[in-house]
């Protein structure tokens, strides 16, 4: 059994009324412990709805979501599910509850009813894990976007979840902030063995993922590896883009050049050098 099992889930907003909007339609997938999965889709593809289903903020109208075997339908299990799955949202400002950063990180462990010493240890550990220990006593509104989002990640980490879900957590950040956040989660995945579900609409963020799940109009369009980058037209039809260097490689191939399989800019350059 997988750590996360999503089975034939369906969800619609304004369900039952005339202007019902189907957000997720018959979606199934599983995620194993320790995996780094990118869940990619255009705006309105249903990816955020799916994120909120993973920890029971939204209960599917049809189908089931099982976390370590616990069904999100069961109200009495929600608290245990949320200890396993931490969700970081889009806007860091709206996820913080306290004026001082360390107080905010403590919010989660405090809810777990841990003793003060343990909470303190977790707060220090979580801030260290995202590289924000220097700002412990600082105030959130003085931070840059990337720093704020790292604090938000620390706030979730302090609960010590097995899974970290990032619900478009990079979409409001500048390139520097994005890189900061992506580096942090990659490290958490590798070093702390935390399962990562990265929800995004940037295909280039998916380059480091073990698996890529693509959603299109509420349905799964693709589950698999990076090979999908080669199918640029298909990605475009899902409202997605490939990273610039992969687009260049694909175009050169179309122009008759025999470019081999490349995933990074360096690999592309080597291929061009080989052929010229």
């Amino acid at each position: 059994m997988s750590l996360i099992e999503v089975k034939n889930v369906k969800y619609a907003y304004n369900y039952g009324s005339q202007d019902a909007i189907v957000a997720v339609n018959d979606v199934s997938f599983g995620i194993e412990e320790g995996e780094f999965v990118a869940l990619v889709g255009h705006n309105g593809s249903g990816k955020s709805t799916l994120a909120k289903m993973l920890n029971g903020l939204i209960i599917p109208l049809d189908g089931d979501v099982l976390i370590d075997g616990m069904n999100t339908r069961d109200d009495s299990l929600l608290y245990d599910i949320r200890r396993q799955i931490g969700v970081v949202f889009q806007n860091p400002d709206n996820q913080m509850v306290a004026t001082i950063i360390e107080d905010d990180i403590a919010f989660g462990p405090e809810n777990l009813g841990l003793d003060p010493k343990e909470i303190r240890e977790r707060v220090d550990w979580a801030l260290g894990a995202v590289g924000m220990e220097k700002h412990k006593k600082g105030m959130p509104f003085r931070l840059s976007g990337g720093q704020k989002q790292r604090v938000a990640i620390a706030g979730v980490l302090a609960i010590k979840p097995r899974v970290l879900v990032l619900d478009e957590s990079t979409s409001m950040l500048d390139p520097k902030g994005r890189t900061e956040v992506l580096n942090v989660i990659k490290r958490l995945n590798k070093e702390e063995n935390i399962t990562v579900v990265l929800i995004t609409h940037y295909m280039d963020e998916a380059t480091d993922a073990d698996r890529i799940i693509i959603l299109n109009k509420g349905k799964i369009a693709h589950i698999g590896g990076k090979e999908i980058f080669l199918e640029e037209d298909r990605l475009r039809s899902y409202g997605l883009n490939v990273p610039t260097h992969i687009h260049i490689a694909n175009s050169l191939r179309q122009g008759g050049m025999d470019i081999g399989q490349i995933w990074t800019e360096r690999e592309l350059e080597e291929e061009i050098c080989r052929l010229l």
Partner: protein
Amino acid sequence: MRDIALGQYYPANSIIHRMDPRAKIIIALMYMVSIFFINTYTVYVLTFLVLFLLVLLSKVPIKLILKSVKPILFLITFTAVINLFLTPLENKPYVIDVYFRQWTVNNIIFELKWKFIRFGMTWTGVNNALKMALRLTLLVMGPSLLTLTTTPVTLTDGVESLMKPLRIIRFPVHELALIMSITLKFIPNIIEETDKIMMAQRARCADFDSGNIFKKAKALLPVIIPLFVNSLRRAEELAYAMDSRCYRGSKGRTKMKELKFGLKDFMALLLAAGFSFLIFMARYNWFSLNIIYSLV
């Protein structure tokens, strides 16, 4: 402006800063009540001295404490003027009493008469004006020392802890404290957002400054509506985030920073109680201690 969430907190490492907020709140309350019972200049001077000593201990610049009086300067002047000139002009003997020496003078210092209108100043008026000014000044300075040495968050924790007994009557103490703390957190965000919305509407030639009050109120709608809509969205996202972080209300919740009421806090409380007792003693002449009573 964005520092509003800090209130007027002055960061320093002093014995006063480190005190338990509950002790500080109780002492501030005792102090505020006691002030109303001071009626002699000796005790006023004594109270000022004690307050001065506390300010020194707190390492807060005395200038900041004095600044706290500024907003009520008008009130102080206003009451002083009323006391000075609107006290009835009673022609009676008035005893000025300074350290066992006494002078008896006429109550009326000067008087102007024009037809039926009498205008003048009395010693009673001078006395009342001076005491009222002293009382108001003390009343503002004490609590501002509290807020200068305590962050709003700690203050909230203190209030929450002190109100705990109210839980018995199902008063939502924890929820109220959380609301207070979240409000403090979001004030800078909302100020920033208001700023941006106003700019966006000004860019479309919105005019917030001219016209009468109704026109002005109407002109603010393009600011208030987006602010309201955005705040609702914020609240929804915050609720999701709190749920995700295992929030279940106060049930089973612990705190990282437990308030610790130490021996020092207890001593401080005892000292403060002693001082209040002294004030009451002077006022009601318990034990007939004339020394304190002797000044006026």
